[in-house]
């Protein structure tokens, strides 16, 4: 069996080399070229709902809805990447933040919630982000002093507590849930957008039956958040996170206030989780405790690691695969998760660094592999 694994791994390596050649060529392109290609790619992503690309269309589900789900999951992954990929904290209960964000918007914005405030969406969302950040700090304050594996179980517990609370509390309407979660805006498509396939002028931009508006909003937020996280990554903050992940003691001796930065990572991760929850359930317009099981949370972690923790494009790819593949391959129906599970094992054996690893990660794993034990 080991021999099979090795030969398959070799094949994978040669593919990686081929791609590396491509990568070098890309790196050697003039700055302007690269900017233009990136710009074109972004345009392509925005145009995706209108393009009839045969092979990638999803068979049963509305394609734009799937795209929207992908965007939301990417947002989740970007947040989780801050916590896991950058700061190296294992958070298995991330869905708790997702829930807190979603419920905050639902409770504050819906006419059917027990709290009759009915703030508009644009007011709800910043509040939701603030609330999730605070919940991140509340969770992190006592637990971030714990060592890695303990953190995992405590966060798992947190996720479950949030779900149980959502299920049994009056403010969340229990499992009956809250309908009428506000949409971002009541506006309608203007005349000049009419040319885009699927858009009819005069129909609401954020409509449940045509989610292009939601997709564009989510995509925009994804870009903003990715840029924001990238800014952090390439600053004192990001360096501190990496240092903590690499060697917490050494980092502290080098003057990094580790607790503070771990808390920040938690809070930022939480905020992004809250934002994605708020976004998803604005489209859904209905929220109940059903959507917040720990299993999803664990799948997210898997997606982030498999995509390539530490690399934003990697985690984004992981998230997209997690959202997209089950919809694309509906014919496998009942075996989707089974295949997914097997794929996870296979991936960790063949490509432990993830699909698109960060450079750091890749070298580390290569070196570690050489350090294996003596003998067969």
């Amino acid at each position, binding site marked *: 069996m080991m021999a099979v694994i090795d030969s398959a791994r070799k094949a994978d390596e040669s593919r990686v080399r081929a791609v590396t050649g491509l990568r070098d060529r890309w790196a050697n392109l003039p700055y302007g070229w690269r900017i233009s290609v990136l710009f074109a790619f972004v345009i392509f992503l925005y145009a995706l709902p209108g393009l009839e690309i045969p092979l990638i269309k999803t068979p049963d589900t509305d394609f734009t809805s799937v795209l929207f789900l992908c965007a939301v999951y990417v947002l989740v992954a970007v947040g989780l990447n801050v916590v896991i990929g950058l700061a190296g904290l294992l958070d298995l209960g991330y869905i708790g933040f997702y829930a807190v964000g979603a419920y905050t918007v639902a409770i504050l914005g819906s006419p059917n919630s027990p709290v009759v405030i009915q703030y508009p969406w644009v007011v709800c969302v910043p509040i939701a982000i603030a609330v999730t950040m605070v919940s991140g700090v509340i969770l992190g304050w006592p637990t971030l002093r714990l060592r890695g594996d303990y953190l995992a*179980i405590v966060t798992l517990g947190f996720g479950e507590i949030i779900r149980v609370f959502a299920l049994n509390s009056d403010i969340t309407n229990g499992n009956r849930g809250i309908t009428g979660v506000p949409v971002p805006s009541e506006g309608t498509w203007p005349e000049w957008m009419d040319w885009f396939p699927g858009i009819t002028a005069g129909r609401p931009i954020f409509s449940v039956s045509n989610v292009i508006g939601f997709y564009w909003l989510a995509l925009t937020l994804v870009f903003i958040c990715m840029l924001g996280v990238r800014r952090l990554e390439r600053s004192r903050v990001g360096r501190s996170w990496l240092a903590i992940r690499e060697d917490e003691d050494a980092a502290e001796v080098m003057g990094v206030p580790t607790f503070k930065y771990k808390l920040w990572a938690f809070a930022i991760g939480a905020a992004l989780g809250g934002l994605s929850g708020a976004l998803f359930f604005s489209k859904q317009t209905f929220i109940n405790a059903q959507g917040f099981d720990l299993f999803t949370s664990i799948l997210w972690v898997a997606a982030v690691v498999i995509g390539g*923790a530490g690399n934003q494009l990697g985690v984004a790819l992981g998230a997209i695969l997690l959202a997209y593949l089950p919809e694309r391959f509906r014919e496998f129906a009942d075996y989707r998760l089974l295949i997914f599970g097997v794929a996870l*094992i296979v991936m960790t054996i063949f490509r432990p660094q993830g699909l698109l690893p960060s450079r750091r990660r890749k070298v580390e794993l290569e070196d570690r592999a050489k350090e294996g034990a003596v003998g067969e």
Partner: protein
Amino acid sequence: MNFEFLGDNFMSLTVTGLTQGAIYALVALGYTLVYGVLRLINFAHSEVFMIGTFVTTIVWAGLGFGVGASAPGTFGVLGLIALAIVAAGAASGGTALIVERVAYRPLRKRNAPSLIFLISAIGASVALFELVGAITDRQPRGMPSLVQPKVQFTIFGADITNLQIGIILSALAMLAGLDIFINRTRLGRGVRAVAQNPDVAALMGVNKDRVIMLIFVLGGMMAGAASVLYDIKVGLTTYSVGFLIGIKAFTAAVLGGIGNLRGALLGGLLLGVVENYGAGVFGNEWMDVVAFVMLVVVLLFRPTGLLGESLGRARA
């Protein structure tokens, strides 16, 4: 909140809590053994337990004691249970071993970081329960009522049934057996040596791979035994049964001090009992919340659990 209820039924809640806690403790052993030696959360252990619950029903059904069958005499029942423990132990132990070989060993050979192990474990867990889910059509499976509970005696107003006594005692017996094995035998010493210092253990001639296989099998067998007790107690199993029990058992292991056998016992029993008190006081639906809040509080004051971490230090 209903503290009066807790006061009135304290003993009864304690005993039912202990019964559940005994099962947690047995499953927690699997987490603790693997963690003690490999510093790794064996996420797939919950499914190892789940496999045991199904094998039990298959064995009983195969012997003609399917759903609705009436129980044979006392000795027959004991025989069936013993047989189920052997079969489920073997199946769970075997599953654990397969998980080790397929999902962990290739990674160990490459000295992968622990996060990667976790993902592989999640994969194994998902694959196992989806596989069983597909085989069983995701339908729950019932089993015969082998043990007719009889009240044996009453302490402080609580009726203690033979079933409860049986579950608690068999769990304790198995734990004691494992404890003796780890602390008193040569192989057990090897396990502790690897847990305390794998390099030096190798210098003593301990084969690490064999020790790792051993702990997976042992943990699996304990989960198998737990699954039989669970089946007798609950009477129904589904493919998704492992997840919650797994999380609880893992919590129990951390609570007692993961990597520590006696910690698993203490953590399991404590979790079962406190959870039950919590259910009594705050209502059933808050049971898990009580459990996790207790975990956080304990970890705040004892960051490595009640009895501390090391498998080797269990007796020091």
